[in-house]
C-alpha cells in the first residue's frame, strides 16, 4: 500500500527464499545463470575484434565501446575501422613501444576470418584463438554462442514479460468478473489455440523479415494463453476467499481488490512458472532459427549454428559446442525452476511412513 516500501518482503517470502537457498542444486544453478547473463552483458570486453586498450605514441585508446576509430588515427593508410589484430602484429614488428591489448577472443560474431588456401569451417585452435573453431563461413563459434545466448535470453525474458502482462491482466479479469466476459474470452482462447502457430510464423516471415521485437509480438500472440488460463483459475479461487469479501465489505472497488488483494496472492504461481517459461522461450527461438523463420541472418543464433552443424556433421565442433551449450543452459534453468517449485510448495515432498 501507499506508504509501505515496495521491497519489504513478507517473512513468508523470506522463508521461501531461505528454502530456495537450501536447495543447493537450484541455488547454484541460479547463481551460475546470473553469472552467465552478466557475462553475456559485458561480452564486448571478452569477445570482440576491437582491442581493449591501444597504446599508440604515448596515448591510450579504449576502442571497445563507442564510435569506431579509423585506421588513420594509428598511422594506417585506410580510414575504415582499424583491424586491431593486424595492428598488433604491426606494433610488434615496429618495436617502438606501442602496444595493444586484445580481448580473450579477438573476433566478433559477424566477422568472417578468411584465409588464403584454406576454407572454413576451421577446427578449434589455441593459436588462432578460435577456441571452439569457426562455423562454415569462418565466424568464431565462441562469439556466436555467447552473443546468441544474449539474444536468446533477452528474447525469452521480454517474451515472458509480455506474456505475463497480458496473461495476468486478462486472466484475473476473466476470473474476477466471470459471467459473459469470461465466456467470451474462453471461446476466444479456444479458437486462438487452434490456430497453427508454425504456419502463421512461416506465412508472416515469408512476407516480412521479422526483427527482434516483431518476433516477440508474434510469439506473444500465441503465448499469452497459458498464463491467462492459469490466472483465471487462480483468481476464481482467490475471489471466493474471505479476505476479498472483507475488502468488499469495507467498500473497496473492484480494481483495488484485483490489484491490491488478488494479484499479490497469486505471485507464488507466477514465480513458479517463470523459469519454465524462460527455458520454453529459449527453445522456441532456437527452433525457429533452426527452421530459418527466426531472426534474420547474420544475427548470431543457436538455431542457425545447430542447422550448420546438422549440415556439416564432419565439423563436429559446431554441433558439439552448440548442443553442449543448449543442454547446460536448459538444465540450469530447469534446476532453478524445480528448486523454486519445491521452495514454494514443500508439502509435495513429504511422505508418510
Amino acid at each position, binding site marked *: *500500500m501507499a506508504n509501505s516500501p515496495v521491497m519489504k518482503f513478507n517473512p513468508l517470502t523470506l522463508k521461501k527464499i531461505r528454502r530456495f537457498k537450501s536447495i543447493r542444486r537450484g541455488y547454484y544453478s541460479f547463481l551460475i545463470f546470473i553469472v552467465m547473463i552478466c557475462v553475456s552483458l559485458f561480452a564486448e570486453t571478452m569477445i570482440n575484434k576491437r582491442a581493449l586498450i591501444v597504446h599508440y605514441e604515448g596515448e591510450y585508446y579504449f576502442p571497445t565501446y563507442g564510435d569506431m576509430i579509423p585506421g588513420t588515427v594509428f598511422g594506417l593508410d585506410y580510414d575504415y575501422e582499424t583491424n586491431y589484430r593486424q595492428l598488433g602484429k604491426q606494433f610488434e614488428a615496429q618495436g617502438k613501444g606501442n602496444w595493444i591489448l586484445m580481448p580473450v577472443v579477438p573476433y566478433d560474431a559477424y566477422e568472417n576470418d578468411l584465409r588464403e588456401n584454406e576454407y572454413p569451417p576451421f577446427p578449434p585452435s589455441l593459436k588462432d584463438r578460435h577456441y571452439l573453431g569457426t562455423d562454415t563461413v569462418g565466424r568464431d563459434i565462441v562469439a556466436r554462442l555467447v552473443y546468441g545466448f544474449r539474444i536468446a535470453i533477452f528474447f525469452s525474458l521480454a517474451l515472458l514479460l509480455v506474456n505475463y502482462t497480458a496473461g495476468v491482466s486478462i486472466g484475473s479479469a476473466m476470473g474476477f468478473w466471470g459471467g459473459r466476459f469470461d465466456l467470451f474470452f474462453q471461446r476466444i482462447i479456444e479458437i486462438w489455440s487452434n490456430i497453427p502457430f508454425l504456419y502463421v510464423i512461416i506465412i508472416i516471415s515469408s512476407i516480412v523479415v521479422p526483427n527482434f521485437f516483431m518476433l516477440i509480438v508474434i510469439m506473444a500472440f500465441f503465448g499469452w494463453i497459458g498464463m491467462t488460463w492459469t490466472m483465471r483459475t487462480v483468481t476464481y479461487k482467490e475471489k471466493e476467499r474471505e479476505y476479498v469479501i472483507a*475488502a468488499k465489505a469495507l467498500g473497496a472497488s473492484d480494481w483495488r481488490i484485483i490489484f*491490491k488483494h488478488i494479484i499479490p496472492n497469486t505471485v507464488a504461481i507466477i514465480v513458479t512458472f517463470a523459469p519454465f517459461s524462460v527455458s520454453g522461450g529459449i527453445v522456441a527461438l532456437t527452433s525457429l532459427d533452426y527452421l530459418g523463420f527466426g531472426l534474420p541472418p547474420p544475427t548470431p543464433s543457436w538455431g542457425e549454428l545447430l542447422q550448420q552443424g546438422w549440415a556439416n556433421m564432419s565439423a563436429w565442433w559446431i554441433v558439439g559446442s552448440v548442443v553442449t551449450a543448449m543442454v547446460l543452459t536448459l538444465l540450469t534453468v530447469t534446476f532453478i525452476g524445480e528448486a523454486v517449485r519445491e521452495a514454494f510448495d514443500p508439502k509435495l515432498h513429504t511422505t508418510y*511412513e
Partner: protein
Amino acid sequence: MLLTPFGKKACLRRKILSEVILKIKNLVTAFDTESGRIRAVDDVSFEVKQGQTLGIVGESGCGKSVTSLSIMRLLPKPAGIIESGEILFQDKDIVRTDPDKMHKIRGNRISMIFQEPMTALNPVHKIGKQIGEVFRLHYSEMNKKEIQEKSLEMLHKVGIPDPEKRMGEYPHQISGGMRQRVMIAMALACEPDILIADEPTTALDVTIQAQILELMKQLQRDIGMTIIFITHDLGVIAEMCDEVVVMYAGKVAETASVSDLFKNPSHPYTKGLLSSMPRLEYPRKMKLNVIKGMVPSLYELPRGCRFQNRCPYFQAVCETEPPMKSVGENHFSCCHFENLKLETRNSKLETRNSKFETRNSDQISSFKLQVSNLKMHFPVYGGVFWRKIGKVYAVDGVSFNVRTGETLGLVGESGCGKTTVGRAILRIYDPTEGDVLFEGKNMSLLGRKALRDLRRDMQMIFQDPFESLNSRHTIGDILEEPFIIHGVGSPEERKSKVRQLLNRVGISQDAVTRFPHEFSGGQRQRIGIARAIALDPKLMICDEPVSALDVSVQSQILNLLLELQQDMGLTYVFIAHDLAVVKHISDHIAVMYLGKIVEYADADTIYEKAMHPYTQTLISAIPVPDPSVKKQTRILAGDVPSPINPPSGCRFHTRCPIMTEQCKHEEPKLRIAPGSVGEGHLVACHRAGEVKSEK
C-alpha cells in the same frame, strides 16, 4: 478364519475388561523444522484400559493429534521422528516394530478416524470399494462375494440407510455425517482393539454430532473395543469418556477419571478451560473467565512449567519443572501446588464475574435494522448448454428487526442460510427479493456511491481469521485500508488511528509492520475486529467469529465483543451454530432451518421455553460439560435436506419427531407462540405448544 460381525473377538474382549491394553511411557515425538527440532510431544505417559474410552483434551497445538499419529506410526516423513519412549500395545512396543509389520497392526488392531470426513475418503472410489479394501488388505482369503456381504453389513451396522444403494455411490454424493459413518465403518471393519478418533465430530453440526456420538457409544458396547477420543470440546469429553488426559503444550497437565476431572479439576489449566466455556445455564452477557494469553509456540517454550505465563497462580517456583503429583485416586496433576491452596484462590476468581451493561433497558430504542421477507436464491447451472436448471433456496423469506444497541443471534446448522442472510444484509450478495432497511433507509434503492458510504456504518467480522486477512499485507496495511478506501485523514492521522485501534483490541503496537501469519488465531480475530470497528460502524455482522477458535481464546473474544458493544453502542447480528455461545451474547435469538426462521424469541425464552421441536433438539444436542448431568439427548434422524429441493409443507417435517399429516402439505406461518403475549416469541410450527420442552 471367517469372522462374524462382532462375534468371537468381541466376546473374548468383554471378559478381559479393565486390563491395560495400551501403555505409553515417556513418549517424545519431535519434528525437524527449519528453525531446528521441536518436541511436539514431550515426555507423555498414560495408559488405556481395555474397553474404556480415554479422552485427550487440549487446545490446538497441544500435541493431541501428534500423540495419536505416533501410536499409529503415521508421522509425516522425513520431518517427524519418535525420539524416545515406548508405546506398549498388548506388551509389544510399537515404536520398535518393523515398519513392514505395522501394516498388520494398522487398520486391523488399531484404527483411526479423522476430523475431515470429506478429505479422508478417496473421492474417485465408490463407497463399497473403499470399505471392501479394508477386507482385501487384512483378509486375503475372502472372496469377492464375502467382501461385498461384509461391507454391506458394516454399512448397516453404522446406521446408513439404504446401504445397497450407498455402496455404489461416490463420497461427494453423501453428506458429511454419512461420510463420517462410512469412515467409522471402515475403521471398525476388522474389529480393531483400539479405535483412535481424532476430533471425529468437530466438522459436523450438533444434531449430526449427537448421532455420531451415540453411534460410537453403541458400537463400543457391541464390540467392546477401546476408544481414544481426541477433542477440544469438554462437553463431548464429559459425554463420552471414562478417563481423561489433559494436554498442554506437548505435556500432560492432568489425568483423571471423567467425574473427578469435572468435579475437582486440579491443574490451573483445566480449571481455566472449564470456567471459560459459556454455558447455557449461565446468565447472559456475563463476563467470562479467561485464560490470558495463548498456548506458547513450541519454539519459545518457557522454562519449567509450560503454563506459567498464563497461570493466575504463578510463583517463582513455577520456573522449575513441575512434578506429576497424585492428587487423588487415579488422579494426577502436573503442578507445584496442592489442591487445597488452589481452591481458596479460586473463590477469588469467581467474584470477578460481572455483567456487561450493553443497553439502557428502560428506553425502548428505535430499530437499527429491519429485514423483511428477504429471499436469496442462487441459480444452479447444468445441462449441455449450461442453462439454469434450478435454484438453491439459500434464504427463503426471512424477516426480523434489530433494535439499536441490541444483539440478534442467528443460529442454525450449516446450510440453513445464516451466513447468506448476513451477506445479503451487507449487500455482498444482491438479494433476490425483500427489503433491508438500515436506519429506515431501504438499501436496495441505494446507488453504488450511496452504498459505499453506507458501508462505513455496517461492518463484518468473519469466521476464519486465517482467511479473512490478506496474508500479503502487513497489519498496518490491513488496518489502514478502510481509511484509504474512504479517504479519511492524512497518512499521519491514519497511522495514529491504526495505533489506537490496535490498542483498543489489545494488540501491541509493533504489530504494524508484521504479517498476519505471525499471529495466533485469537490475535488475528482481534485484528479482524479492529478492522471492522475502524470506521466507527453502527451495525456489525459477526459471522461465526469464535467457532474457529480454542475455548480459552473464544472467551477472550466474546468478552471483547461485549465490551465494544457496551462502549460503542454497537448493534450486532451474531451468526453462529453454537447455541451456548449465541445465547451468551444475544438479546434475541432467531433459529433458522433451511432458509427460514422457525423460532424467534428472547434469548432466555428460547432456552427456557423453546416451542419448536427443532430448537428443542438443538438445545438437547449440545454436549454438557458435566458428566453428572444425565440428560436425555434427543437424536434427530437423518440430515438437513438439500436447499435445492426443500421438502414441501413444513421444511422440518422429514426429521420432526412430532410430524403430522398436516405438516407435509401446509407450510406453518411464523406466528405468536401459544401462551405468550405480544410479538416477543414467534414460532413456525403447527403443533407448537402441544409438546412441552424438557426444561
